[in-house]
């Protein structure tokens, strides 16, 4: 049961990023507002048209209210959903259904974080729960490390295979002027990096950067008149199975297997139809888990799938073509950047442009592999 979804009836009309990497001297609000204004300009739409607001800021649980006040908006619907870094992909599901129903006409989804300039540490109001905190896991790295330990145990996945993910991300980043971490990175570099929480070294972990992003959504009939190529939303689905890693039903299967399955059904496509894949790679194990759970390879085969540059430029599947959270940017909640890169690929304006992209998949992860959300976008040809 996929659930009803208005396939192709809504579209992403504008996108923007701002302050990716380092953005000193800016508040999170200033960054998100700038990205929002740039996304509206990209769509050729005035600020006054925004009547649905979807936002997360790391330092403001009522960010939607603050953001509306800041830009002088009076949205008919405001959503400060907090499902972690997947929140923005959930926002797309909410916005698409509300737009198609005519409840709202123009949705702005925005995010901004100054965590690198602001403190240099992962900026999150989230931590271990009372049942885990006494054992002092590194939050969230140890949670992902525990899942990786099971993947190693059950499927023979290796640190070298995890390193392939980091090396591929860096190779894509090296072709992306917006990426924060560039330069050579080898498998041996990753293997020799300081161990953080085994089997994850510091090079298996995402960056700590600043960055803001925003997208504008509207109904497809209105987006047809837009300034940029139409990018319809073909499917968007979310699934939450747990929060703490100790309560994850199966450490090697994420709720992406549910959100992905439903998103594919909505879109009427399958993994083999997807031209480019943008996954929330907070840690190298994420990419492997999501490639499996989203059907790009069988369960347990993710390690072998990424070997020999399988997801690097020139490999058999283009994954995280902007460099991902591992090498492009990770301001704390990376989800919205997966959508921006997917839209750029469909429009034909990505830094590492893949030829002829008609279907792009963006996938967000929240919590500790807890909350998963999948968005499938298409070109006008897919309508």
């Amino acid at each position, binding site marked *: 049961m996929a659930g009803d979804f208005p396939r192709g009836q809504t579209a992403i009309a504008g996108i923007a990023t701002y302050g990716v990497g380092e953005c000193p001297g800016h508040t999170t609000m200033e960054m998100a507002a700038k990205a929002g204004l740039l996304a509206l300009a990209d769509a050729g739409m005035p600020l006054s048209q925004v009547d649905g607001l979807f936002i997360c800021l790391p330092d403001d649980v009522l960010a939607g209210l603050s953001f509306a006040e800041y830009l002088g908006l009076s949205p008919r619907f405001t959503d400060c959903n907090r499902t972690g870094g997947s929140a923005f992909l959930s926002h797309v599901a909410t916005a698409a259904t509300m737009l198609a129903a005519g409840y709202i006409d123009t949705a702005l989804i925005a995010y901004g974080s100054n965590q690198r300039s602001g403190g240099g540490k992962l900026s999150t109001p989230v931590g271990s729960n009372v*049942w*885990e905190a*006494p*054992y*002092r*896991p*590194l939050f969230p790295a*140890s949670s992902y*490390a*525990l*899942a*990786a*330990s*099971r993947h190693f*145990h059950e499927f023979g996945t290796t640190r070298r295979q995890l390193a392939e993910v980091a090396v591929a991300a860096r190779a894509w980043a090296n072709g992306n002027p917006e990426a924060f971490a560039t330069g050579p990175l080898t498998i041996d570099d990753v293997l020799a990096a*300081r*161990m*953080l*929480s*085994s*089997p*994850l070294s510091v090079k298996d972990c995402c960056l700590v950067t600043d960055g803001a992003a925003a997208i504008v959504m509207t109904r497809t009939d209105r987006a047809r008149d837009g300034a940029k190529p139409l990018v319809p939303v073909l499917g968007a689905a979310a699934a939450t199975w747990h929060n*703490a*890693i*100790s*309560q994850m039903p199966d*450490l090697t299967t994420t709720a992406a297997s549910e959100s992905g399955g439903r998103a594919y059904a909505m879109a009427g496509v399958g993994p083999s139809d997807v031209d480019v894949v943008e996954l929330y790679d907070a840690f190298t194990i994420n990419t492997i888990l999501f490639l499996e759970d989203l059907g790009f390879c069988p369960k347990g085969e993710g390690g072998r799938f990424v070997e020999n540059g399988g997801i690097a430029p020139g490999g058999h599947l283009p994954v995280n073509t902007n460099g991902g959270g591992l090498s492009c940017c990770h301001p704390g909640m990376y989800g919205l950047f997966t959508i921006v890169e997917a839209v750029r690929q469909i429009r034909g304006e990505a830094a590492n442009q893949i030829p002829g992209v008609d279907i792009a998949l963006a996938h967000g992860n929240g919590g500790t592999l807890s909350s998963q959300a999948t968005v499938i976008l298409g070109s006008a040809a897919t309508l």
Partner: protein
Amino acid sequence: MTEAAPQAQWRAALAEGRFLLQRARGSGTIFFPPRLAEPRSGDTDWEWIEASGMGTVHAVTVIHPRPPEPPRAVVLVDLDEEVRLMSEVEGVPAEEITIGLRVRARIGERDGAPILLFQAA
């Protein structure tokens, strides 16, 4: 007057040296952490049972703090009652704690509070 909620009851028992789990009377399912109702069914007809204390290491990570603080392992333990929880294994070097290791629960003390820990069985 209402009696203490499940989380407080569990903590009070731990302070008395008892490691408790909940069991739904209807399904027989045992669950942890303490809840008001059985997950999924929402059944509020449950009882406290004493945990066997026996379990198996299901997953392990070794955290490497900056020296001189030594590496330390954090584990997920599958209790024989088919309940999973996070903990530590005492008395075994961090790098020697492996998935499948049989462990036994012990109630220790940390920062003045009781804490559930494990030792090699």
